[in-house]
């Protein structure tokens, strides 16, 4: 009986090659990341300002803050992720550096994907006074009515989001109701035929405001001037 030829396993070659490929790829990724980071950050800031200016037309400056259970902190340059339990919001100032409003993001699952909106919160009125869409993939001609239907946008002229007496939650949850049945200022009148998308907007705003406003409103005086 003949002995089978011994197959040499190139263990060292395999480790060396994988190491070499990893080093080359690592250098390429880190290099490109460092090179594109300033442009990416500038684009994000521009996109945010564009949205903030849409919901708060008198805006001139936007400053990113984090609301946390222990108070409000300004975001460091390039810092995007809020501390644990915290939430990102944007303090918006006019040309004379007076606080003109707060902008915050709400997000919920729509018909096709997440519907992400930016809403403006008016401190004096304790109400939502503007709505902009950050991103959505809803049915064209139907879901996109949330930013084209002027009747629907009237819901956000003064949507009541005042806090309860002990400032732990909204006094009344924001709710989307069937088209034509709105009776209270904290309700959103749905668009007939686009109920899923309009409900997603209402849910996103409610979840965001329920979490953000109890952390933000007790410390609002800190934001009167930009930090």
């Amino acid at each position, binding site marked *: 009986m003949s002995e089978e030829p011994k197959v040499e396993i190139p263990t060292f070659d*395999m480790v060396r090659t994988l190491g070499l*490929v990893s080093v080359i790829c690592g250098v390429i990724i880190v290099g490109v990341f460092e090179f594109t980071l300033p442009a990416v950050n500038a684009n994000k800031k521009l*996109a945010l300002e564009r949205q903030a200016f849409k919901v708060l037309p008198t805006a001139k400056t936007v400053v990113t803050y984090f609301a946390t259970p222990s108070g409000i902190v300004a975001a460091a340059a390039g810092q995007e992720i809020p501390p644990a339990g915290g939430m990102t919001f944007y303090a918006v100032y006019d040309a004379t550096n007076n606080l003109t409003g707060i902008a915050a993001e709400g997000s919920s699952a729509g018909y096709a994907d997440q519907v992400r909106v930016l809403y403006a919160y008016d401190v004096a009125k304790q109400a939502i006074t503007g709505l902009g869409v950050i991103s959505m993939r809803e049915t064209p001609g139907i879901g996109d009515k949330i930013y084209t239907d002027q009747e629907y946008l009237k819901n956000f002229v003064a949507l009541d989001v005042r806090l309860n007496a002990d400032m732990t939650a909204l006094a009344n949850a924001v709710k989307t109701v069937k088209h034509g049945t709105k009776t209270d200022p904290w309700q959103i009148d749905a668009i007939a035929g686009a109920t899923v998308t309009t409900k997603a907007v209402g849910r996103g705003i409610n979840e965001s405001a329920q979490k953000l406003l109890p952390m933000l409103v007790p410390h609002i005086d800190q934001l009167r001037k930009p930090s």
Partner: protein
Amino acid sequence: MSAPKNFDEFMDGLWKQNPIFVMVLGMCPTLAVTVSAVNSISMGLATTFVLAASCLLVSLLRHAIPKQVRIASYIVIIATFVTVVDYAIAAISLDLYEALGAYIKLIVANCVLLGRAEAHAARNPPIPATLNAFGMGLGFTLGLLMIGGVREILGAGKFFGFSLFSDHFQPWVVMVLPPGGFFVLGAWLIVFAAFKHASNKRNAGLQGVSS
């Protein structure tokens, strides 16, 4: 390698082995992002860059990569260039980045890329490997544009964002919805099959005459 051979390498992917209409590969981005011509051309060019760059690197390292770890190496190389293109698009335009969404990252799972690395780049020198990948990428871009262009014209009455019709035009919304992708792809596949059938018939006729 001679210039005509290089040209053949390039034309192979662009037309004769078009990844969408002939090989029917990479259907995920083909159906998902082709709602407009801009999205289509952007996704196509991003894929072309990843294809050409990864095939070049695979070809350069082909003698150093043992066959036991080749797939792992190819995937790491492809993922690297997908990350590069992901950062680049975010730096160029956030609107485009949002429009293409997760599909930029999903280029890494596009079978055209691993297929080219394994079947061609790993067996050929850098120039033909890159030319073949470049042709294949442009073929993919052409395919996406042919689908995206038709969907945008019929679904929105526009081409590259420019309105083509009067206000009386009623867009076929279905064309920018997922079923529209299948309709247009199916229609183009019929056209390509008809061309191929006619060409085969002509060639058979010519052979009959010569014999």
